[in-house]
């Protein structure tokens, strides 16, 4: 039997966001994306397509890159979440940010937080990616401005600098 309107109760969700413990009172089927943006005011996470195709809402959930539009917050209880706002604690982040600026990898900016999350996730798993690895690692992130080449170049540049350090 379907729940009749008004019968589903909000409940407390406790999780770690960017290293801080957070408690929100919400419906368990609220999308993680909406909780981050509306309850926690972390608006760096963007909504693009809302159906897991574009990667604009990427966050790290227990270290894994995920689309936060496809995660009901009830599945994130006890999890550790990193958004673009908290990414500077991750080693490759500053190099990726610098390279994005130098290469002109951001235009309208909607895809940028997701691109950077995906790039950092890739570099943590594969410090010396080939171009094919970069293309694959970012294939779930759509950009309608740059044509991608500037983004791929930035990730390659960040990887080279990180390895030579």
């Amino acid at each position, binding site marked *: *039997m*379907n*729940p009749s*309107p*008004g019968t*589903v109760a909000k409940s407390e969700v406790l999780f770690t966001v960017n290293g801080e413990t957070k408690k929100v009172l*919400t*419906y*368990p*089927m*609220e*999308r993680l994306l909406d909780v981050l943006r509306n309850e926690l005011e972390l608006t760096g996470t963007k909504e693009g397509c*809302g*159906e*897991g*195709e574009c*990667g604009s809402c*990427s966050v790290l959930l227990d270290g*894994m*890159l*995920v*689309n936060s*539009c*496809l*995660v*009901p917050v*009830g*599945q994130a*209880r006890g999890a550790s979440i990193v958004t673009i706002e908290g990414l500077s604690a991750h080693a490759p982040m500053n190099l990726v940010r610098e390279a994005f600026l130098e290469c002109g990898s951001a235009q309208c900016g909607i895809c940028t937080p997701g691109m950077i999350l*995906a790039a950092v*996730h*890739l570099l943590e798993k594969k410090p010396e990616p080939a171009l094919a690895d970069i*293309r*694959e*690692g*970012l*294939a*779930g*992130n759509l950009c309608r401005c740059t044509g991608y080449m500037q983004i791929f170049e930035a990730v390659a540049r960040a990887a080279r600098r990180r390895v030579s350090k």
Partner: protein
Amino acid sequence: MRADPAEYRLVSPGNLQAVLSLLAGEPAQWLPIAGGTDVMVLYSAGKLSNRNLINIWNIPELRQIEVSPDRIRIGAACTYTALRSDDIVSREFPLLATAASWTGGIANQNRGTLGGNIANASPAADSLPALLVYDAELTLISVRGERRLPYRHFHSSYKKTALAADELIRDISLPRRFAGYFSHTRKVGARNAQAISKVCLAALGQITNGTIRDVRLALGSVAPVPFRLNETEHAVAGKKIEPSLLETARKSAISEIRPIDDIRSTARYRAAVAGNLVAEFLEKLAAAGIDA
């Protein structure tokens, strides 16, 4: 219109027995959700009719890969990322590892699960033709007990499956007897990454002195369900791979499948590509010359 989260229940029993009890208590009322890569898309679009969801993402029994000398047993909630990074899957079941690498981008591979792909029953799912050629067997579990079902009997018609209302897919088991086969898979879609297939082939073969000993062919997106080409397999078994056989195989494949026109492609294009993919596989098999 977007769904209202206040109208949907999501419970997290946290262990398999509690999930099964809930399913049995109110059969057909509960929809399991693992990585949500299909369910959440429907939900967000306001098209999810089932308003009671059970979280199975956090059930440890469903996330394991168990290996025995003759089988590998993949928990239904294993993600594509887990499949891609498993040594035995990569080495002995490369068609499945490759299909996992084609399924969405990395973020969706981190959440999407093999059991979810099976239960969602899309005829265009990339991992399902691989399961057909590897003779996968499913373990279905409920409070009534477990039963084993060959995967080829799971899909009865478009989006219809053999899963009872109180059952869950527990694992997908593959026999470890295909390591010596030549394997080949090819996806034809609008774009390599993320795009849903127009046609997808998974194939295994063995030849001796140029003669086909065994061949196993399955296609996605060419019929209401993932499709094993039994007639074409039969038509080429025991034959020498030569140009006339490629033509026979191509024609047989085209007559056997039941493609449709839809937003991604046309029946005519799909039939032509399906025939080409089968012929291409046989050419590659001949060139590889794997004798077992």
